[in-house]
């Protein structure tokens, strides 16, 4: 009734960056970031499920961690946490840079973030290697490895995402102040991985 002639694209701000996704299906607004955030909501439910499972195991157990489990060393994971947390601020600089059309700047900040992520992973591998319990030692050990391992996998995926974006940025003008969905997505994802780690660190090491 209140209709007018329709062109969604022009009304809602269609960006050319969306063209490859849309294929031959013509114009519509760039919904990729919205879709990506919806995906992360779904992904957070995976972690929520595992967290709640952890708390249930813990609530049901007579002693937690089970008697005889060596204490977790907190210094190294603490340093790791600081590194990962600060990397969230670092990656934000990449976003600021590309909004000023500064491709070299965004590349630099992405490289720094990747290096910090890699340091985190290396720290985690070091921790794994020096822990006195293995995956099958007891229920606490199993949940510890699966939760941190799952998170580590997400860190790795984040690093690969940034690597992909860097690889694509070789092409002149692939990312600019107007179109930089890849950079935004990698950043949002990295923040997500960061938040999950803060929760995980609190649950496993502090509580």
């Amino acid at each position: 009734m209140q209709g007018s002639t329709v062109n969604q694209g022009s009304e809602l701000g269609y960006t050319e960056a969306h063209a490859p996704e849309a294929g031959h299906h013509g114009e519509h607004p760039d919904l990729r970031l919205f879709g990506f955030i919806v995906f992360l909501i779904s992904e957070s439910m995976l972690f929520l499920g595992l967290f709640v499972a952890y708390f249930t195991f813990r609530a049901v157990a007579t002693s937690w961690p089970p008697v005889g489990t060596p204490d977790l060393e907190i210094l190294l994971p603490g340093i790791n946490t600081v590194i990962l947390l600060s990397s969230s601020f670092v990656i934000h600089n990449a976003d600021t840079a590309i909004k000023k059309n500064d491709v070299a700047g965004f590349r630099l900040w992405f490289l720094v973030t990747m290096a910090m992520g890699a340091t985190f992973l290396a720290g985690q591998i070091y921790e794994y290697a020096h822990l006195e319990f293995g995956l099958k030692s007891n229920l606490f050990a199993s949940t510890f490895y699966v939760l941190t391992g799952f998170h580590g996998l997400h860190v790795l995926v984040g690093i690969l995402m940034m690597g992909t974006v860097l690889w694509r940025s070789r092409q002149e003008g692939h990312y600019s102040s107007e179109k930089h969905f890849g950079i935004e997505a990698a950043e949002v994802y990295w923040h997500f991985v960061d938040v999950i780690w803060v929760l995980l660190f609190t649950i496993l090491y502090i509580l």
Partner: protein
Amino acid sequence: MAQAELPRQIPLDPLGEQEQGPNWREYFGFSTDHKVIGIQYLVTSFVFYLIGGVLAELVRTELATPEVDFVSRETYNALFTIHATIMIFLWIIPTLTGGFGNYLVPLMIGARDMAFPRLNAIAFWIIPPSGVLLLCSFFIGPASAGWTSYPPLSLMVNKGGEAIWIAGVILLGTSSIMAGLNFIVTILKMRIPSMPLMKMPLFCWAMMATSALQLVATPVLTGAMVLLGFDLLVGTAFFNPTGGGDPIVYQHMFWFYSHPAVYIMILPAFGMISEILPTHARKPIFGYQAIAYSSIAISFLGLIVWAHHMFTSGTPDWLRMFFMIATMIIAVPTGIKVFSWVATVWGGKLRLCSAMLFGMAFVSMFVIGGLSGVMVASVPFDIHVHDTYFIVAHLHYVLFGGSVFGIYAGLYHWFPKMTGRFLNEGWGKVHFVLTFVGFNMTFLPMHVLGLQGMNRRIAEYDPQYAGINMFCTIGSYILAVSTIPFLFNAIWSWSQGEKAGDNPWNSLTLEWMTTSPPPVENFEEDPVLVSGPYDYGHTYYQDLEDKAIAQS
């Protein structure tokens, strides 16, 4: 008054003479057209339906007599496990969300395609390999612990098959999440500007509620599957009591998905019925807002009722009480829908075509399944009938009497849009009668069996149940035969059926405002809404009024 007026360059083609449909080769490739993908889903999942149906007939044949005489006990366990897995993950969910959702949602909201066409295609192409993978497990001994796959049982028998089952469920879950993501974004962001949410067809509301469930609930199942996989393949003890684990945690995680999965399997059917009944009753839908909001209410409540599957799992009393009351509350929004449908049909000028027959059968059969659902929601009653044939009867009244009748109604209703041709009505009615009679013969007596105490999931039973079981088995054969007229009808009508034209049912929703089948990108020009989706009868009363004025 038509809902949309399409300014067209080409003249309207009332009989759909020109062939607009995609080339048949497209159906076998990686197409990003939502209409092609929708039909890919429908056909693929129907094939799995037939396979799952064969498994069900084998189960019923074994149960025809009290002794174990047709298949071994081990095979029997595998048969009902894979039957349920196929029917849920490869038939009802892909057909309703992937098939009808894909085909109809973009058309109904006036969009040219889904928000993410390639993601859409990937979501579909995960399904055939997962299904084949699951079926291949028959070569090494398939999962046999029931579709619920409760540990520690699932960790003890047919480990290879169980591993394949876990992999299959994770893959199908991933596909389901991708589809849900696509629908949410499409429905929220790609409606034509003249269509606010409250003018959206009710099927889209239902799909929105369904997608929310897919997104929120499925990842938890994935988490459960990962932990179960570690227990099975690595030897951890998350769910294994011998290693200090807790099998109840698995049940919670499993049902946190699998109860909402029931709503994933019924909400889209609710949506389709809300389209079909008003169209063929020629009346506006009764209580548009009530039906729309009740979909959202069901979606939310569906997330907090899961432990009613676990009343006999040592669930503490206060928790049982909470889940019992929450479950019964779900009957309220569901009842709102049922009463609205009855009020829609009430006093209408009914067109008793096959689509309408299946639609009305849906309402009546679903009411039976819904009422037995309220019965088993009550803790004392549930403890009595838990794991008996009463539950089998209840779930089949919901998933067959509900979902499958809804799917058939949808197929008869939208087949003309998808192919440009009608399904044959005569054979459609034969199909309907056979399905309705066969279904009720198979499942109605199971209520009695369950109340008498016959356990499910066991190949042999007490001889006192023999008579009723034989009756059920005969009913199931009628049900099997009922698919034959439909199958041939669909194949024949696709190329030879009576031409339908663009809008054979005089429907008002947007999918009927384009050609049948619709062209690539759906509309020649973007449609504009000029009336609500269910404003039936207005022209009729308008005409009467005009006549009265003219006569005076």
